């Protein structure tokens, strides 16, 4: 498979009055042509900041402090601001989670979809609006030609999310980065939007980075998964391997803590079944513990976990990587 994107040792920090928030720390991953990488983690784990870093849109006081972002062979970190604009939206497009706030209320949805095409000089306004109608049909907005002139408030949440996807697709990007694209939606709409994303990916040959906290969404959509915790990727594996044999104790705990349909127990007078929970709370990035950031919550903690931070290293069988001393010693040798 052709490598589309390669991120190496990316760190994005926010300098605040209270200290440095290391939102993304030494993160490395890649995306191949036509594949879907799932980026999963809980709030504050750095998954959204990673997405913004890819196109250098980190809001101040955030700053990318190190790393290489190689897209189709070009290092985006070395580009001038005006040159990176050729990539934003046109090569790498972002879909955000909030369909209520990500659209501009004073422009019609048709114009907002067409805007990218006009700004990038790809089409004149009239032609771009025609293209917008085609894109709305592509994302299954019924009666597209008429709805071109609708304002965002005239549309439901599910329709707005589809407009955002149409906007992202307008300039025919190779890589779509969708940050929690269904989180604000009800489950029946979520199913429809995920179905749409999968179909578009296949039809248009897109690569997708899908960011979600929902392991069900990840399991259904991703080919490969990277699990983030406290700004780091702690495990990466093909989706089946990750769900079947999680290697990092955090991944394992997360998988055990989600209720699954059909596992609630049965029979009259059944006792309600408690869930297996990860103890403790998601850490504050300003007050990270020494050593492995997960060690205070880890059921398998060892003495070295409190002292050293495990490196993110490939497992011997290849295709998988994990940052945990259960799998390699502090010197990096496999155990």
């Amino acid at each position, binding site marked *: 498979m052709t490598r589309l994107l390669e991120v190496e040792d990316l760190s994005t920090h926010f300098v605040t009055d209270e200290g440095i928030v290391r939102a993304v720390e030494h993160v490395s991953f890649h995306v191949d042509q036509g594949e879907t990488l799932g980026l999963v983690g*809980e*709030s504050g784990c750095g998954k959204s900041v990673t997405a913004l870093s890819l196109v250098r849109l980190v809001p101040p006081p955030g700053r990318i402090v190190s790393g290489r972002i190689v897209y189709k062979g070009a290092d985006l970190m070395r580009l001038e601001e005006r040159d990176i604009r050729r990539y934003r939206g046109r090569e790498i497009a972002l879909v955000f989670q909030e369909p209520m706030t990500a659209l501009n209320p004073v422009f019609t949805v048709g114009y907002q979809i067409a805007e990218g095409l006009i700004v990038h000089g790809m089409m004149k306004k009239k032609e771009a609006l025609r293209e917008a109608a085609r894109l709305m049909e592509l994302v299954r907005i019924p009666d597209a030609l008429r709805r071109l002139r609708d304002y965002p408030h005239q549309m*439901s*949440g*599910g*329709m707005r999310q589809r407009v955002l996807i149409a906007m992202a697709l307008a300039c025919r990007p190779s890589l779509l980065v969708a940050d929690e694209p269904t989180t604000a939606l*009800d*489950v*029946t*709409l*979520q*199913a*429809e939007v*995920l*179905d749409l994303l*999968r179909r578009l990916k296949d039809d248009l040959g897109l690569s997708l980075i899908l960011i979600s*906290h*929902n*392991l*069900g*969404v*990840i*399991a*259904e*959509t991703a080919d490969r998964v990277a699990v983030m915790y406290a700004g780091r990727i702690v495990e990466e594996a093909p*989706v*089946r391997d990750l*769900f079947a044999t999680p290697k990092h104790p955090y991944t394992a*705990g*997360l*998988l055990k*803590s*989600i*209720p*699954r*349909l*059909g*596992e*609630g127990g*049965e*029979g009259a007078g*059944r006792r*309600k*079944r*408690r*869930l*297996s*929970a*990860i*103890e403790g*709370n*998601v850490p504050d990035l300003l007050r990270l513990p020494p050593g492995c950031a997960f060690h205070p919550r880890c059921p398998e903690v060892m003495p070295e976990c409190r002292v050293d931070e495990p490196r993110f290293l490939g497992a011997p069988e290849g295709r998988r990587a994990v940052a945990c001393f259960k799998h390699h010693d502090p010197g990096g040798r496999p155990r």
Partner: protein
Amino acid sequence: MSASGLLEVRDLVKHFPIRRGLFARPSGSVRAVDGVSLRVAPGETLALVGESGSGKTTTGRCILRLLEPTSGAVRFGGVDLLGLSPRDMRRMRRQIQVIFQDPYASLNPRMRVGTIVREPLEIHRIGAGRKERDAMVARLLERVGLDPAAMRRFPHEFSGGQRQRIGVARALALRPRLIVADEPVSALDVSVQAQVINLLIDLQEEFGIAYLFIAHDLAVVERIADRVAVMYLGRIAEEAPVEAIFKNPLHPYTKALLQAIPVPDPDRARTREVLRGDLPSPADPPPGCRFQTRCPVAIEVCRRVDPPLVEVAPGRRVACHLVPGPGG
């Protein structure tokens, strides 16, 4: 299921008038809750599930009288709540408590945790004096898994999961017989959700509290509910014991809802029947069955006649023309 309900709701209706412009007369109404009847027995959990706009939250608020229903009856322990004076209703709230969804918005940021949890004890004059109440607060905080030293701290010093534990401690302070929990875990991180669900299950076993558990996440509901009522556009579409809902859903909407849930198992098929179209506006519900505009199996009669909620088996009620009643 027990015949003696702790909470009995009959034909509950809540319409919100739509007004256009200042001083304008109502030009219509949003029928948020449109004829809901349900019953919660002592110590059991009834889950009220549905998507946004289904009326589940409004139903909960009407039961608590945080909203005044348009019509209908709400009886708690045999007492008609809607007939109570504000003063008597306040007294009744000792037995009916609430846990809200957003632990960031539902705790007063200027109050210390001790004050927040102690407040209901003071209002209802439980415990003699500050010292005894503080001891009660300390025990409550410990019971929900917090360090009693949390009393002296402010809500912002706690994470989402810890704040929800504070909300639970406050609801628990008066030893209520019923807690209305409105999406109590949906704002929490996955790893923390499980902790709060476990806490709610344990507290129910220990104190025999009944829950009206309002939620959209069916996987969570399966863990905590004894019975489930599925709402769609202000009505109950189906009501059944929890195993029946998950093993053998009868209403097409319940089936669609269960199918739509993403399964955390990559080996499951990645394609499914998806429900097309959006929820119709509750200000203008479709004629006939409310689900007919999205129903994959609707027939002609569904477009004309609104199906009543009928008992099809003991403890099972369904509002669908295509589900045969008892005896065929």
